């Protein structure tokens, strides 16, 4: 069964309720060479059913943004400022036990490399079932001891595992549930990971470059699957990728990140058709297009900066072809609102 994954017309006047709101989220990593501000003052709103893309080069803070939402930033990283309001409650100040109830149940995450994301020593069915057990999804009795020996629960969990595997398009799920990760192809492994994420029917799916490690035809299938999940279950998705093409086809809104800063935000149509930030313009110039007969791809000059030794001012200014003297000054760079939800952080505006 194939689904077209073109953007569908959204109803204009009914705005769905707010699901997640980040306010000034700041995550830092102390390193020997200095403090790295991996995510610096990130703010955005995500509505129910929305598909948001976060784009940027490696090291721009996309993944850390996702991990910060789940409070899984690896040591020695630390969230030092901001709020992450999920259904109105701040995740960053929740007690650990409360946070664990949200992880995997309300907010699930899909990782980049399926091969290393599945635990090699457990059958995939057990890895999907584990989430159900943690969050007590199909339990009929209380108390961990009675649950442990509850035959009906075990059967119900098994049934749910098979159903989720079928939902994500794994053929012959009953047999495949007993297989180990190395017996699956990359695309099927990613489906298993998506099944783990979906098992508890989360409100929000954080997808960290879910297709980067896969070949192109499999990429399209996985994006189809994510689209189907979004449409059928109303699950919101934050998709992190460095691939603008994937975002353009999948997402409703885009955030462009550079060196921990949000540089630009808008709907997919706005940003692709009319990029405001010189960095976004540069990114789009890198994309080869079939429609235009272009001789050369224009790469952005220079390299991603060393985050521990950022120049004063805008971190993109050393590579920017429109940089002005004040861009290199140590001054505030506010987000400029150009229209509703249309934001850019650049002194040109």
């Amino acid at each position: 069964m194939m689904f077209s994954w073109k953007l569908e017309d959204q109803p204009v006047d009914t705005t769905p309720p707010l699901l997640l709101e980040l306010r000034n989220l700041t995550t830092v990593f102390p390193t020997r060479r200095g403090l790295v501000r991996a995510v610096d003052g990130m703010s955005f709103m995500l509505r129910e059913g929305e598909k948001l893309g976060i784009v940027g080069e490696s090291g721009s803070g996309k993944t850390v943004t996702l991990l910060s939402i789940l409070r899984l930033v690896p040591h020695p990283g630390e969230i030092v400022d901001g709020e992450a309001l999920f259904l109105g409650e701040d995740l960053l100040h929740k007690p650990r036990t409360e946070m664990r109830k949200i992880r995997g149940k309300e907010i699930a995450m899909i990782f980049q490399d399926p091969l290393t994301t599945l635990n090699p020593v457990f059958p995939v069915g057990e890895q999907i079932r584990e989430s159900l057990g943690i969050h007590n999804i199909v339990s009929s009795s209380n108390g961990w001891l009675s649950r442990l020996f509850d035959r009906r629960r075990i059967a119900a969990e098994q049934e749910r595992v098979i159903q989720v595997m079928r939902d994500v398009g794994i053929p012959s799920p009953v047999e495949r549930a007993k297989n180990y990760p190395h017996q699956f192809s990359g695309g099927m492994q990613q489906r298993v990971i998506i099944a783990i994420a979906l098992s508890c029917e989360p409100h929000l799916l954080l997808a960290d470059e879910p297709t980067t490690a896969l070949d192109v035809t499999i990429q399209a299938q996985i994006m189809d699957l994510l689209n189907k999940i979004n449409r059928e279950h109303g699950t919101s998705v934050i998709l992190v990728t460095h691939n603008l093409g994937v975002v353009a086809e999948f997402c409703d809104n885009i955030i462009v990140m550079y060196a921990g800063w949000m540089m630009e935000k808008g709907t997919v149509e706005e940003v692709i058709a009319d990029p405001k930030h010189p960095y976004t313009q540069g990114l789009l110039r890198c994309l080869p297009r079939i429609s235009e007969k272009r001789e050369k791809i224009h790469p952005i000059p220079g390299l991603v900066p060393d985050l521990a030794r950022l120049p004063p001012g805008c971190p993109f200014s050393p590579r920017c072809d429109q940089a002005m003297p004040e861009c290199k000054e140590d001054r505030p760079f506010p987000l400029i609102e150009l229209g509703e939800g249309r934001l850019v952080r650049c002194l040109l505006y």
Partner: protein
Amino acid sequence: MRAIKVLERVLAVIPIMFGVAIVVFLFMRLTPGDPVDIMMGGGGYVSEGEIENLRREFNLDKPLHVQLYIFLSHAIRGDLGNSYVKRAPVTELIAERLPATIELALGALIFGLVVATPIGIISAVKQYSALDRVSMAGAFLGISMPAFWLGILLMLIFSVRLRWLPVAGRIDYDAGLQTVTGLYVLDSILTGNKAALISSLRHLVLPSVSLGAAMAATVARILRSSMLEVLRQDYVMLARAKGLVEFLVVAKHALRNALIPTVTVVGLQVGVLLGGNMIVETVFGWPGLGRLVVQAIFARDFPLVQGAVMVYAFTFVTANLIVDVLYTYLNPKITL
């Protein structure tokens, strides 16, 4: 399926033991020194005829290939010959001493694992913490310290100074233990002899610690480094992202993977514990195989050395076989 493969591996032990028998036979003959000369104290008042008689008795007058044939044909039937010095069947002599060696090796193994496992896990989880630094320094010490020196030190402190534990031996003479298996701790439990159990355990502590310290140190370091490697993996992050409690993230998802390299090292160490305890046995007067072998080597007691080496080889091969089988359970990617 797995049972058939295991059986195949068990059967493969036979040719290995055959090879070991030939090699140890030839090497013993290559060592300088003649058993009869040594027995006679370098000649003197012993007549040529007596020496000839002894040589004939031990088959040492026959050509080498005939001696080898005699040795192998008897060995297949489970007869490893008679000791030159003790004048008793080698199999009996070994059977008498082997339980003591096994008991000591098991004691050292249990001590090593009980100490190394929590240290390895906790120092990885709390990397660079005070506990990590102290235990890794301790592990470094444990690897570097010779077992005989540690043994003497422990004996001085706990037996001589504090008088908490006995100096030497396996059990008090008045414990009245009835031997069943030859493992005194096990025998005490089987016969319900409480006094003997306490006595045998008290005797076992210091030798086990001396023998097991190096092993504990090695295993702790391997487990720590494997845990550090595994804790960085994406699947550990996924386990956390599922909402699993940190204890299970470590104990279930990480440890199961970290055990795979660790089990290999433990398996090799078991061979070392069984074969490398001559020094500890000597320090603590432990009546095990190691001391018997040392005496046999000095006396060029060919049959006894051959028999003992074959026992060592057998335990080593068996330990490796067990590790290989365990491996298939731990790592689904591996089949026998």
